[in-house]
């Protein structure tokens, strides 16, 4: 697995750099207002994932590359879980960048530090679901089908617009454990779906 992860450094350096730059750019938007912090929480992990994992899925989307990879001492399961591990790394780095910039912005702008763990968990859950569906579509079908993952984003937006205030209130007033449980269930779901994907 370690060898597979080095693939990103050896073959995808440029896109990792672009991903980091895009993440930093979006996280800077936290300096403006609280609502831009929400955008940063959504965009930072997503952009990093798209530049790093998405680009790798694109690079591997040919029979020649698939056969080359499967001729190595690895299995399809390794390839699927390598994408998943990198997607978790993208979420961690994306969230850390967005929150660090928010922390910095609150200090510099002398604002009250508005940091909510439930909110972060919700965005992490969203990112995990998005990434799981993306990787599933890529291996079940091919790279051309992963564009359908964007429809999830649109669907979420519709829900947020429709029930925006209720959702925000629930997030701020509910207990941490409920959201922690949602997070754990999502991670279990992610594991089960990708284990199934690897055996397809």
């Amino acid at each position: 697995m370690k060898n597979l992860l080095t693939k990103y450094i050896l073959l995808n350096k440029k896109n990792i750099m672009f991903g980091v730059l895009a993440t930093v750019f979006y996280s800077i938007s936290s300096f403006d207002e609280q609502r831009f912090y929400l955008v940063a929480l959504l965009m930072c992990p997503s952009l990093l994932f798209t530049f790093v994992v998405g680009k790798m899925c694109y690079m591997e989307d040919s029979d020649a590359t698939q056969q080359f990879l499967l001729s190595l001492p690895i299995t399809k399961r390794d390839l699927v879980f390598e994408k998943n591990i990198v997607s978790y790394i993208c979420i961690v780095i994306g969230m850390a960048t967005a929150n660090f910039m928010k922390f910095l912005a609150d200090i510099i702008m002398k604002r009250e530090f508005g940091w909510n763990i439930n909110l972060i968990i919700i965005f992490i859950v969203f990112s995990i679901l998005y990434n799981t569906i993306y990787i599933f579509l890529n291996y079940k079908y091919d790279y051309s089908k992963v564009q359908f993952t964007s429809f999830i984003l649109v669907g979420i937006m519709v829900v947020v617009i429709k029930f925006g205030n209720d959702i925000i209130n629930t997030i701020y007033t509910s207990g941490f454990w409920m959201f922690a449980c949602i997070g754990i269930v999502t991670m279990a779901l992610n594991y089960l779906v990708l284990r199934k994907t690897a055996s397809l």
Partner: protein
Amino acid sequence: MSVSYQIKSRERNGKEVERKKVLEVNNLSKRYDNFLLSDVSFALEEGRIVGMIGPNGAGKSTTMKLVLGIIKPDQGNIIFQGDNRLFDDCKAYKEKIGYVGEATDFFSKCKLSGIKNFYKSFYRTWDDHYYAMVLERLQLSETYKMEELSKGMRVKFSLCLALSHKPELLLMDEPTSGLDPLIRNDILAILRDYAKDHHASIMFSSHITEDMEKIADKLLFIYKGKIIDKRATEELTGKGIAIDVHLENLVKGGARS
């Protein structure tokens, strides 16, 4: 399950030599919606080159992929160095195999040096000196990107990678198709030297019977998913029978194995 494998085989010069069996494939079958590979059986010995020949869609690539473990057989077994590899660790088995596929434009936007570094990280037996030597012999430079190489150069690079971890079994799926005679000769010379120097077993499929005549010790004729004939190359060339004519006769049902 571990079995000792020593078999006698006839050399091109007619001498009988005892050799270790590297791979034994028994009754391998795989069914697809519109194709059936059935009861494929053959053996590969160390230091020998086996050519697999057959028309398009005969099952050559499927057989290669089954042996490599890219696809799973419906039935049959593959015994590698005495162990049934279907029950073994697939990764340990693949470490001892080199593979050159027909499509060689993998990671097309990447530099050869990056692909090499990625590839070599999987093999404990990787030999940098040997890699540099083969690269030089094939007049390749690592500074290129994969997409900048011609098909012939891509095959050469793939071969370079596949040989540099010193595989005991090399599988090549139509490596010389679409290449000019000069490049084909370079590749065949390297294969011949590798099998001889490293006592490795090589199996390659091709449409080009001329290549088979040049380097294959043994031939497997495959048609409609079945091995229809196996014989030493010498048996045909010694009698002045062209390989393509023999295949044609087999396909028409005019020959007896």
